[in-house]
């Protein structure tokens, strides 16, 4: 942190330079600093490129889960008033989600309810590991981090059609429309 403080004047100077860079046609808007982008960019894609430093295991996640999650999701992730997290029969992490990175992304941005965004990176890794372990996808001692998490093969990884990358075209009929 102190290191960052020392850097601050330099960064301010740098951002003064980039502030001049506005949109080319209308000269509006300003260029965000690297720091601003990092702070805003909480979207984690399937490749996990945006995952931050940190790590956690299911063992570490267990106590955290009991404290932060069990009230709504139940002691084992199969009870409670919130959606089920464990099991094969419903749309859970284990039965449905194709990428483990989405678990990290969602816990980090939206959980726990009413305290969204309050968990540290280590805590999110630990909770993600706990859910993967409870769904019998990893071992209890497996550490989840920016490197290991994107490599997890989820059970339903191939349960979907391949992503229709940019297949949408204007005027395209809906794929399952009933034509006369």
């Amino acid at each position, binding site marked *: 942190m102190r290191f960052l403080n020392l850097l601050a004047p330099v960064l301010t100077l740098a951002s003064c330079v980039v502030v001049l860079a506005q949109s080319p046609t209308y000269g509006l*808007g300003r260029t*965000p600093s690297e720091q601003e982008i990092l702070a805003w*960019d909480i*979207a984690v894609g399937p490749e996990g490129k945006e995952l931050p430093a940190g790590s956690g295991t299911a063992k570490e996640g267990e106590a955290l889960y009991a404290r932060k999650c069990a009230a709504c999701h139940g002691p084992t992730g199969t009870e409670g008033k919130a959606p089920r997290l464990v099991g094969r029969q419903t749309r859970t992490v284990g039965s449905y989600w194709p990428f483990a990175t989405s678990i990290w992304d969602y816990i980090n941005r*939206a959980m726990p309810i009413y305290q969204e965004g309050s968990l540290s990176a280590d805590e999110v890794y630990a909770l993600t590991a706990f859910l993967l372990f409870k769904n019998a996808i990893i071992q209890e001692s497996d550490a989840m981090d920016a490197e290991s998490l994107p490599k997890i093969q989820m059970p339903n990884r191939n349960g979907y059609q391949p992503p*229709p*990358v940019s297949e949408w075209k204007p005027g395209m009929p809906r794929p399952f429309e009933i034509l006369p």
Partner: protein
Amino acid sequence: MDTKKQNRRRFLKEGAALAGMAVGAIGSASAQTPGAEASPVPYRDRRAYGRRSRFVNSVRTNDDDATHAAFGRSFNVYTPLQDSIGIITPSSLHWVSAHGYEPPDIDPQEHRLMIHGMVDRPLIFTLEELKRLPFVSRIYYLECQANRPEYKGETVQQSHGKTACSEWTGVPLSLLLQEAGVQSGAGWIVSEGDEAGKMTKSIPMAKVMEDVLVAYGQNGEPVRPENGYPLRLVVPGFEAIYSMKWLRRIKVVDRPYLGYKEISRYTRDDSRSSWFQFEMGPKSVITFPSGGQRLPSRGYYQITGLAWSGGGAIRRVEVSTDGGRTWKDAELQGPALRLAHTRFNMAWKWNGEQTVLLSRCTDELGQVQPSLAEFARFWGATSEQFLSRSARGAGHSNSIQPWGVNRDGSVYNAIS
């Protein structure tokens, strides 16, 4: 920061209490007979911001989403289509599904839109800057993918009240992305909202460059808070969850990012499971006479309703007044705009006998609204499974809605 957060919590708490009061007020208002409300508002008090007549009491009704309600965060309301006139939905009656979050209380001075990712020039805009850019106004409907005929919908508000049509004003997202300079290899954007859960949704770049708006205006005034104030996406024709409310960020990426709403909800999860469903199909519904209404006597009526399609403009609406034995073309009451509600009318003389009223529409691509049986056959399920929600893939049901008319003039949901 902590104090700020606490203040926000307190605000939300008090807001929730106020909202509770408001719900109570709505409940009692709708229980009253027209005109029975308090005495007229003194005309001086109506000068600053107009109010409707005290004899008009059409209101949004609450959804009964049990999961969200269990957390005290249900803000889902339906548009009263049975009272709709023309094609524009008043902003105050626009349906809302906030996915379990409170509409955030955003100060427009503080709000920013960031565009970054696979672009040459990442940019941050204030609202004031966005409003200086070239803008367009377009009339588009927004429909929830869960909007469909079901047993439980006694009225058209309950069955189809999650669609509404507004004039949206804002900057084409393509213009903003041209300013940022999209890099080669970019195929999607991730949009992100500013509610507590910071919802995300991935949108294919081809659609973004076609007609997506970054809207700040709705029907001639700023977008309403529950509809996305101060800034929202409008992704016309796609299921409405793509039209990100409280828009804070656009990240340009090479592939879909698959957030929570893309991998556990809003998917097509039968054997043809797919991450994305885009357009809603051609759909029409008769808004008068519709379930819960009553025809006072036999004789002349204008059957009227709305038709819309994610495929573009509505070309034709047919109406049957004899349960589907015969069909007649209804009149399209212009304008019949692309990706907007289109009003249709048909003269009808009710002979006082029991009957069933139906409507079906055709869009500019030639897609025809299916019957429930046709829709179910396509999915390899039975109609019963769709209506009881036991069939996956039921999202996007655009089947024909039948309204039965009894001899006493009462109208009911005739799905069977």
